[in-house]
């Protein structure tokens, strides 16, 4: 850090980039790994962050908001993403709605729940077969570039984008007895 400023955490960088791009509406289904990001967004009056009961409900809210002029991003964990294939295939992609998603990655790098491990294997194949842009964020020094460029691209190309936050970035969730 040449200017001596303290290094920002991943969730502070994400908050700052969302704000720069005027992404203000944040429906989420909570996750322990996302907790610091959710707390930051809820504490900041720029954002309207609130929990929804299902990820597909959150996707619908972001789609409506986009078409009416407000940018939104949906936060969820890996198992929640697995409930979205139909909505992505029948709403976001064919209608050319740039659905933005942040997924905290479970199921790898120390997973303790076999169900999480198995459902995680469906995530990238679903994204790939719908040709949805996605990036796995593993390094703190890449967070800003990946989010900034990918939000620009989503808006410019009217295509959804999914940011997968690896345990390499967030620390993930480890088994605690």
């Amino acid at each position: 850090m040449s200017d001596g400023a303290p290094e920002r955490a991943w969730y502070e960088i994400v908050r700052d980039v969302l704000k720069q791009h005027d992404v203000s509406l944040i429906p989420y289904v909570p996750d322990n790994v996302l907790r610091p990001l959710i707390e930051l967004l809820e504490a900041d009056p720029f954002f309207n962050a609130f929990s929804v009961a299902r990820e597909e409900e959150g996707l619908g809210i972001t789609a409506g908001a986009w078409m009416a002029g407000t940018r939104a991003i949906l936060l969820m964990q890996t198992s929640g993403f697995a409930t979205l294939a139909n909505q992505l295939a029948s709403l976001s992609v064919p209608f050319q709605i740039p659905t933005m998603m942040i997924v905290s990655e479970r199921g790898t790098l120390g997973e303790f729940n076999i169900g999480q491990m198995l459902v995680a294997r469906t995530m990238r194949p679903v994204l790939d077969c719908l040709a949805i842009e996605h990036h796995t964020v593993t390094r703190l020094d890449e967070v800003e570039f990946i989010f900034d460029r990918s939000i620009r691209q989503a808006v410019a190309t009217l295509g959804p984008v999914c940011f997968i936050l690896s345990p390499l970035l967030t620390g993930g969730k480890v088994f605690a007895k």
Partner: protein
Amino acid sequence: MALTTNQPVTRDQAKVMNRYDITKRMLTYLHHDEAVIGGIGYSNFDLWAASESPNGRRQQNFYMLGSMGLAVPIALGVALAQPKRKVIALEGDGSILMQLAALGTVAARDQKNLTIVILDNGAYQITGGQKTLTDQGVDIVAVAKASGLEQSAWAADESAFEEMIERAMKEDGPWLIGCRIDTNKPVDTTERDPSRIRDQFMRGMGVKK
């Protein structure tokens, strides 16, 4: 809060009305470019049919082509983005049964510019008329009230529906109006061109010029 003087208490007491006729009546009370989000199936088709006019089709309508159950969430997103515009979600009974928690989300946001109209014929009609849960005891208006949508009621008949939609377009919601409807065929079929539907709707919302 009493919505109408002759408000029925239960689904059984509400008159069975015609889907196209009710949709047509609803549209006559829209004078300020209100947004209408049509769910899937015949409620969507009759919205398309009822929205045709000599001046072309209403731009402020959005027609889903899948994503069953998302009419209320999409309408909530529009309502959040444009709090000064009234927004209507037009949804069938089978569809809302898939996403009942969306009613609680609307109540929790206290979304004053949102009205939900449920067209309830108790059947998955487009797939052959199989019974939905509303034909087996589930009362959507009661579910809505229990979810926190206090201003929810069944429309006793056509004139009661008109009274309710007129009021919903003037006063703060959120509102939910339950309409029992028949199983007649829809008048037309929605054109399945999603990019065009989205583009027209965004122009209707003033987001694109």
